[in-house]
């Protein structure tokens, strides 16, 4: 069953605090280490880089507008499959 709308999105309080501190200090490129994979990505997180723990390491996740409403854990897989490079391309943003 979906979460009730009246509750609002769930975010661990420490994630909000760390994000606000990063914004206030102006150090937007620093990686904000978090362990809360269950927290929802909010609009005020756009442009910040979070290091989302996957059980082994913190995976850097640069938040963009299209990620709002998803959970942080969705961008930090706990299992890694390398596959083949073939003709896959990486874009430097």
């Amino acid at each position, binding site marked *: 069953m979906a979460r009730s709308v009246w509750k609002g999105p769930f975010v661990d309080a420490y994630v909000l605090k760390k994000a606000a501190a990063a914004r206030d200090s102006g*150090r937007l*490129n*620093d*990686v904000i*280490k978090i362990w809360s994979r269950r927290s929802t990505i909010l609009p005020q997180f756009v442009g910040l*880089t979070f*290091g989302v723990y996957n059980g*082994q*390491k913190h*995976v*850097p*996740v*640069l*938040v*963009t507008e299209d*990620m709002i409403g998803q959970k942080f854990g*969705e*961008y*930090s*897989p706990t299992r*890694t499959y*390398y*596959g*083949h*490079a*073939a*003709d*896959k*391309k*990486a*874009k*430097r*943003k």
Partner: protein
Amino acid sequence: MTERVQVGTIGGAYGVKGEIRLKSFCAIPEDIADYSPLTTEDGSRSFDVTISRQITNGLAARLSGVDTKEQADALRGLALFALRSQLPETDEDEYYYTDLIGLDVFDTGGNPLGKVKAVQNHGATDLLEIFGPGLKTTVLLPFTKEAVPTVDIASGRVIVDPPEGLLE
């Protein structure tokens, strides 16, 4: 820069009319036919590839010089390579994974940090996985202009400016 890039592998015969089961590693699986002729790793054999249709877990295809089920079965497990020069040109600030993997990594002070082990993308930005002698484990670095200011494929190196705390 690597000369040949693995783009697929042969899974065996598909049906009894000489078609093969082809597993494509390309970003768009059907693009493998655009890189024809594909060769073996040593370049001793080459095949023109014609995609017939999509099948479960791969593509059904015809290879030049393979007309029977027996010939197709004999090729089971064969890796197919394309020449790096056959891949289309990239846009600005776009790089093939195969070009990035293996590049030497230096920090902005010129100190060596290691090599690019892999490139990953989990839905956010692309990530460079860096491994070096001074690092306890691999480090994931966002592939952004701030974190990776210089990519020099020709001289085989990238210069990185990792955010504070990332290399700890």
